């Protein structure tokens, strides 16, 4: 259900402005604000919701009433109250969530969303399926952003020099400013804002600048996620930006571009990419991904061929590529390709492959790269005939006259700025170091800051700073454009909790608009966009209902490549920097979780492990194993190296990292060093966004800030850096201690195409390859002959005894739930982790507890490296000591797999975890006494134990027990999903297949049925929940569509189809636990013509080494070659010889 959300006048909002919200309830009960809040928060019957938080809230309230003398306490039990609306709210059915379309704006794009609200509380965000490119998926950040709304540390009032301002005072203040500068035509007024795609903001800015022509309007973003327009401007003569269609691409070359994650439009990219990657049956095509990069990005982890090359050498590489692909340009490119140490064969084979797929191949360059490279890449795409096919160019939004941060800095230096507005952003924290922004900002007499937190920028000079509390996008009206330009609404779900303002409200007041009501502002922008003649209210209704303005995407322009333009871009060729331990390249990347620091105070994101390093709550200086060795970081193994050596040093299971000082050009920062396989040998990667000095409880003190190293000249990478050991150490909360699969059959991989001389190992030759791996491959079938003959449906209900002593009772449910996870398309973006956290009220536990291994995530992403070098012997060999410098990465989402013969259930003494008739392994929290036996006996280690009262105690006083304060902040209670119990300490928890969604779907379906066929019998087919009627949280948000959940009794259901694939297998299947969640094996699609081609995926090589040391593996003849090699030479197994250049 999506509809315009009737919004009471903002006036009501003021009564519950900030601080009062925080006073004790009984005091609050007296205030009219409380009543208003009741009306908003506890509509008709809301208190009857069964959500623990709501109950608890009611108890507190009852208590407070008692104190206030309003209620009486019963003699037998405390009285609780039902507080219905005074006046009913139209369309709100207590107990049923409502869904509204909105969008999360970020930089120059936005993510269209649906918000699930419970009586006005948004609790869960999901992608908006009406926006086709994203297909209902959402990103990690989008999933987590709902928590920011309830951040107890957000700015709760407008303040001037520390004094709280009322709403009308703020309006007055802004009006005053407007007046003052109207006189000077804006001279002396400067506004610094973050980037935005909002048409309304653009419109207001235009108006404002028309009014105040001499005003300085500048925009700054520390991180770029779209290519520089300069390149397009030069070669196409137009301000256009590329939009990629990976769905159409058969061959992809990524040049230092993490297009799956950090580039704008990532969700659409993942969706397209996985479309081309998905292999459901023999004969399906599969795309091939070449990646040349310096860091190990998620995109790189998906690569079929990966080339480690320093970012400062990428220009040379690109030049070489162009020269190879377009011989005409060879002479021109030669000087730039000078001194590039990359195996020529790699480039030739790669280019040949791309050329062979003209029109179906594409080259992508990272947004952080200089314009020259983009210009060349556009050229490559032209040569490949990609333009118009796999990549289209659209008219980019451009606001002429927008000045950069440096311009603004100059203006301030010149003393021409008297009043500075800082709308969003956080320049004091993230401005380039050479600008010395703090000093500049201090020098401005009046600074007005619109910020969500009182952060570094707001608290720089409190006396002279006015801080306006910004509204969260879930509590304010606005609009935005997605990466491809589609206009989407930003619709409020709830009144501003603390009377915050949005940017457009501020700008409107400055521009002196008559009607500053944000809804009016937005509709004033949208209606014209909808085209003439459209009836305004209809337009808005439709706009808000669909959550987008149909056909509003940016205009596609066909572009002509102008070689002359390229030459204009290029200066004289520079010699390639010679990299080494004393001349390191530093690469600044936006963190996968906290981005450029904007999400630093979001607990869900902080606790979510970084997809590749698996480190939570911190960033680290990432160095390659080779550099690590040279720096003297040599983790010691165990007594006799029985398993692959860890890449990090561990102390009692905690990563005990050395703190190094990273210095470049006289600037220096300190941070823990973490060895990251897969980096270019002398490239050091430092994620931005950490080390916030002024932030909330969560963000403060997490990690270190890398901004002090950045200069305007080198925002994204710089050479000439040095690392020096400070002799100190610090713990890193690494959630995955061990990196190797140890040659086990956990993730089963095969190459897609046969090798030059076929060995029967590839998918093409043996689609059922997963069955020739693992214990099952050479043990009698666990289902028994009888069971093997059964249909999947019968197996799910009858549960064949196999060779067991016991006959399992039949599962007689109408539905039998199951899940399938496609390891081939999962890119490891971690969105599912946080989606699950939001849906299931999963608490965060803080760095200290994560260090101890007590993180609570119900779904985790296991990340394994494999290098083909593992010791064939049981223990004690050189192969185990070697660290992989250029590994293959395998990712596996791991959550409760709901075993039909669940080992956890057998051992629970109190029947707290049993099976239901529909095959779900249930967990009755209230029955659990916490013996933790189930967790011990779970082979997948997916059960999570509440060691403390995570929800009721603050994370810094967990060990104080009763001495610490009990109860969770009201704001956090509002974030909880009322459909799921909030667990107390001492109970076990785990994935429940989102049983609340399952049950509600069933009930709704049955209710409909009963009302539809009055009295007429209902067939077994009818009673089943239709496939796709609902999705579980992780499945719903997965951009790759790698997770499929549904009823396996329905042969036509998506999940049945997925499970029917030949590459479907059960992890640890030999244990005969019969998981309901099965996995589709991973495929790699290397090019046999490439120099680094390996006939088998490395993990497979390691498997064969461990399990068929002599190489007598059936089906795996190909293993002879690697297996015979000396264990200690990884590269000889086909690891790119070009790797580790400097």
């Amino acid at each position: 259900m999506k509809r315009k959300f009737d919004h009471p006048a903002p006036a009501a909002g003021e009564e519950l402005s900030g601080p009062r919200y925080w006073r004790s309830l009984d005091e609050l009960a007296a205030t009219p604000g409380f009543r208003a809040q009741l009306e908003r928060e506890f509509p008709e019957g809301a208190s009857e919701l069964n959500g623990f938080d709501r109950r608890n809230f009611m108890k507190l309230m009852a208590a407070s009433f008692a104190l206030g003398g309003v209620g009486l306490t019963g003699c037998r039990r405390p009285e609780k109250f039902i507080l219905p609306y005074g006046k009913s709210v139209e369309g709100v059915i207590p107990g049923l969530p409502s869904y509204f379309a909105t969008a999360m704006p970020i930089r120059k794009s936005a993510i269209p969303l649906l918000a699930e609200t419970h009586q006005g509380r948004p609790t869960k965000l999901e992608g908006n399926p009406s926006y086709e490119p994203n297909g209902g998926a959402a990103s990690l950040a989008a999933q987590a952003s709902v928590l920011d709304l309830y951040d107890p540390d957000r700015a709760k009032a407008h303040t001037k020099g520390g004094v709280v301002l009322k709403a009308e005072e703020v309006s007055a203040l802004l009006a005053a400013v407007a007046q003052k500068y109207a006189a000077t035509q804006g001279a002396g007024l400067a506004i610094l804002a973050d980037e935005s795609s909002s048409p309304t903001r653009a419109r207001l800015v235009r108006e404002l600048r028309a009014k105040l022509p001499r005003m300085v309007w500048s925009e700054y973003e520390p991180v770029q996620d779209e290519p520089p327009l300069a390149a397009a401007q030069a070669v196409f003569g137009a301000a256009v930006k590329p939009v990629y269609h990976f769905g159409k691409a058969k061959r992809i070359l990524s040049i230092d571009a993490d297009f799956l994650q950090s580039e704008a439009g990532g969700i659409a990219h993942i969706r397209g990419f996985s479309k081309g990657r998905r292999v459901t049956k023999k004969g399906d095509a599969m795309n091939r991904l070449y990646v040349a990069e310096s860091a190990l990005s998620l995109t790189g982890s998906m690569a079929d061929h990966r080339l480690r090359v320093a970012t400062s050498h990428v220009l040379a590489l690109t030049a070489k590529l162009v020269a190879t692909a377009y011989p005409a340009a060879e002479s021109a490119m030669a000087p730039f390709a000078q001194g590039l140490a990359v195996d020529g064969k790699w480039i030739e084979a790669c280019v040949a492959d791309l050329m062979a797929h003209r029109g179906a191949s594409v080259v992508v360059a990272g947004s952080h790269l200089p314009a020259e490279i983009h210009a060349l890449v556009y050229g490559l795409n032209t040569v490949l005939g990609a333009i118009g096919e796999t990549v289209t160019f659209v008219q980019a939004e451009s606001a002429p006259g927008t000045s950069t941060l440096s311009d603004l800095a100059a203006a301030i230096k010149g003393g021409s700025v008297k009043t500075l507005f800082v709308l969003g952003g956080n320049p004091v924290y993230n401005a380039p170091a050479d600008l010395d922004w703090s000093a500049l900002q201090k020098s401005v007499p009046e600074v007005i800051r619109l910020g969500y937190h009182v952060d570094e920028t707001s608290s720089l000079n409190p006396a002279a700073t006015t801080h306006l509390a910004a509204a969260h996008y879930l509590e304010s009206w606005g609009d935005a454009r997605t990466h491809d330009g589609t206009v989407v609404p930003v619709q409020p779900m709830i009144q501003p909790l603390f009377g915050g303002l949005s940017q457009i409200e501020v700008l409107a007041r400055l521009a002196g608009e008559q009607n500053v009501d944000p809804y009016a502002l937005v509709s004033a922008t949208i209606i014209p966009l909808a085209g003439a003649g459209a009836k305004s209210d209809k337009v808005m209704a439709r706009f808000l209902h669909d959550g987008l303005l149909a056909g509003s995407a940016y205009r596609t322009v066909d572009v002509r490549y102008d070689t002359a333009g390229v030459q204009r871009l290029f200066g004289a060729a520079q010699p390639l920097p010679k990299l080494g331990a004393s001349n390191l390249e530093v690469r600044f990347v936006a963190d996968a979780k906290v981005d450029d620091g904007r999400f630093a105070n979001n607990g869900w994101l902080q606790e979510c492990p970084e997809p590749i390093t698996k480190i939570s709550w911190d960033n680290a200086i990432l160095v390659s194993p080779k550099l690590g060795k040279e720096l003297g970081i040599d983790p010691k193994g165990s007594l006799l190296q029985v398993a692959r050596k860890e890449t990090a040093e561990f102390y009692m299971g905690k990563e005990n990292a050395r703190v190094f000082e990273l210095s470049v050009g006289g600037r220096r920062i300190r941070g823990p060093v973490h060895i990251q396989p897969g980096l270019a040998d002398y490239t050091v990667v430092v994620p931005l966004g950490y080390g916030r000095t002024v932030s909330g409880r969560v963000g403060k003190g997490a990690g270190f800030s890398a901004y002090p190293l950045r200069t305007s000249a080198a925002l994204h990478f710089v050479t000439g850096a040095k690392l020096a050991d400070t002799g100190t150490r610090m713990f890193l909360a690494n959630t995955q201690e061990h990196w190797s699969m140890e040659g086990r059959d956990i993730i089963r991989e095969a190459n897609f195409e046969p090798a030059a001389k076929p060995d029967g190992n590839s998918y093409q030759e043996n689609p059922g390859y997963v069955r020739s791996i693992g214990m099952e491959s050479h043990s009698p079938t666990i289902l028994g002959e009888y069971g093997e003959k059964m249909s999947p449906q019968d197996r799910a209900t009858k549960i064949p005894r196999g060779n067991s002593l016991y006959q399992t009772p039949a599962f007689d449910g109408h539905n039998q739930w199951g899940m399938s996870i496609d390891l081939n398309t999962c890119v490891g973006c971690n969105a599912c982790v946080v989606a699950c956290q939001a849906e299931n009220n999963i608490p965060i536990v803080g760095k200290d507890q994560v260090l101890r291994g007590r993180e609570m995530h119900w779904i985790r992403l296991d990340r394994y490296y494999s290098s083909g070098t593992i010791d064939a012997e049981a223990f004690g060999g050189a192969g185990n000591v070697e660290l992989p410098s250029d590994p293959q990465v395998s990712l596996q989402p791991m959550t409760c797999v709901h075993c039909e013969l669940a080992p956890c259930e057998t051992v629970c003494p109190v029947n707290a975890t049993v099976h239901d008739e529909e095959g779900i392994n249930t967990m009755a929290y209230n029955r659990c006494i916490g013996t933790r036996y189930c967790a011990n006996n779970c082979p997948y280690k997916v059960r999570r134990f509440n060691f403390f009262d995570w929800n009721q105690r603050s994370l810094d006083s967990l060990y104080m027990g009763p001495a610490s304060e009990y109860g969770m902040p009201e704001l956090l209670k509002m974030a909880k999903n009322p459909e799921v119990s909030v667990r107390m300490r001492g109970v076990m928890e785990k994935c429940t297949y989102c049983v609340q969604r399952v049950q509600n779907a069933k009930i709704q379906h049955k209710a409909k049925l009963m009302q539809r066929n009055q009295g007429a019998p209902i067939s077994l087919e009818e009673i089943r929940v239709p496939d796709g009627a609902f999705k579980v949280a992780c499945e719903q948000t997965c951009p790759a569509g790698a997770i499929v959940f549904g009823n396996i009794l329905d042969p036509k259901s998506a999940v049945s189809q997925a499970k029917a694939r030949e590459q479907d297998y059960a992890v640890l299947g030999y244990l005969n636990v019969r998981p309901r969640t099965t996995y589709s094996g991973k495929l790699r699609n290397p090019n046999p013509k490439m120099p680094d081609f390996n006939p088998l995926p490395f993990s497979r090589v390691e498997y064969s080494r461990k399990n068929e040391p002599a190489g007598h593996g059936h089906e795996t003849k190909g293993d002879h070659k690697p297996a015979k090699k000396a264990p200690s030479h990884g590269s000889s197994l086909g690891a790119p010889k070009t790797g580790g250049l400097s």
Partner: protein
Amino acid sequence: MAHAEHSSPAHPLLQEVRPAELPRAVLVENNRSFNWITEKICGIIEGKTPTWWWICFVLACFVASFTVAGITYLVATGVGVWGHANPVNWAWDIVNFVFWIGIGHAGTLISAILCLLRQKWRTSINRAAEAMTIFAVVCAAIFPVFHVGRVWFAWYLFPIPNSNAIWQNFRSPLEWDVFAVSTYGTVSVLFWYVGLIPDLAVLRDRFFAAGNRLRATLYGLFALGWRGSNRHWSNYEMAYLILAGISTPLVLSVHTIVSFDFAVSLLPGWHTTIFPPYFVAGAIFSGFGMVLTLMLPLRAVYKLEDLITQYHIDCMCKITLATGTIVGYAYGMEFFIAWYGANPYEGFAFVNRAFGHYAWAYWIMISCNVITPQFFWFKAVRENTALVWVLSIFVNVGMWFERFVIIVTSLARDFLPSSWGYYSPSIVEIFTFFGTFGVFSVLFLLFIRFLPVMPMAELKAVTPQADVHGGHGNAKH
């Protein structure tokens, strides 16, 4: 020496046999009289409390307070105060539980199995050994009870009808444990108490004669009016024999079931059929270790050399040696099966034990449990009481580490390398465990102070004078 002309099966206890394998040792040295025995043993109770007892008692109470404090903090705060974390969800708690239960077993074994085997040398040590059993079970019970996350709901473990209409899961070894351990505790107490009755009667009358009505009444109440009637003795003997008879399978079943906690799971390193016999042997091993550790000082302090003779020590050393060797064999067999089974997960589990991150624990275990007992081959060692005592301590340490190795190393590195971890105990765990030794000592000190440390009646029954045909007629008084 006494001879038994006729032996009627009806009175097994009274019948003296000469086991071929055992020398006909003197069970009470210097041909002491009945009265001497009575005086000797009652003397311990009647004499004034020695200073050393008070010192030990206060010390023990202090140590015991650690457990109390540790448990209080645990319950108030959460299991998090221990070192547990995924993947190691059981650690010292269960280690200590198995350790103490194991210790307890020797007591039952001595009093029950040896009784059935007609090993008369048991008489002088069985009372103390049984006491040890009971106190060990008390210490053991502390851990499984308090290791749960919500101890206030621990009653869910018992089949009590309730309005939730839900029952227990009797497939769970943990539920079996509940029954096994509580049965074990109950039966041990009953067995012990029945043995005490005649001696309590002795004390009753002695205190009454000494004019101490209060203590006389107390002992009297528990003596249940025992008057040494032979008609009673005949039923009593039979009951005692039956209790011994059922205690034997009981003690075996208890540790078997404890071992099921692991054997029934599917964790590599736990999931092995060898566990039951191996655990039982280990239990006896550690139990005798503990008996030696306790009895040797007692013997010295109370000058009981005539009652706990070198022959007794000899026997216990030999049993320790035998069981220690069995345990050693089990260690070896585990490795063989892991290799022979050709299951990579199993194989790794054991290699990892010996050479992985916890190798240190493994080698402590091996040296204490397999090497230490081998010294008992030598008579010289067996006769050097001090040395025996030291070795017995090693045995206790070794057996604690055995449980640690089995539980922690298997959990720390199981199926999915992604969830491998490392466990280290928190200070709270360490102190809680340390404190249980205090608890044990407090109870044991109270026992030796207020109850006869040896069964007088049984001792008298094995003296030569007890024979109906005289034997060495009049004993010297």
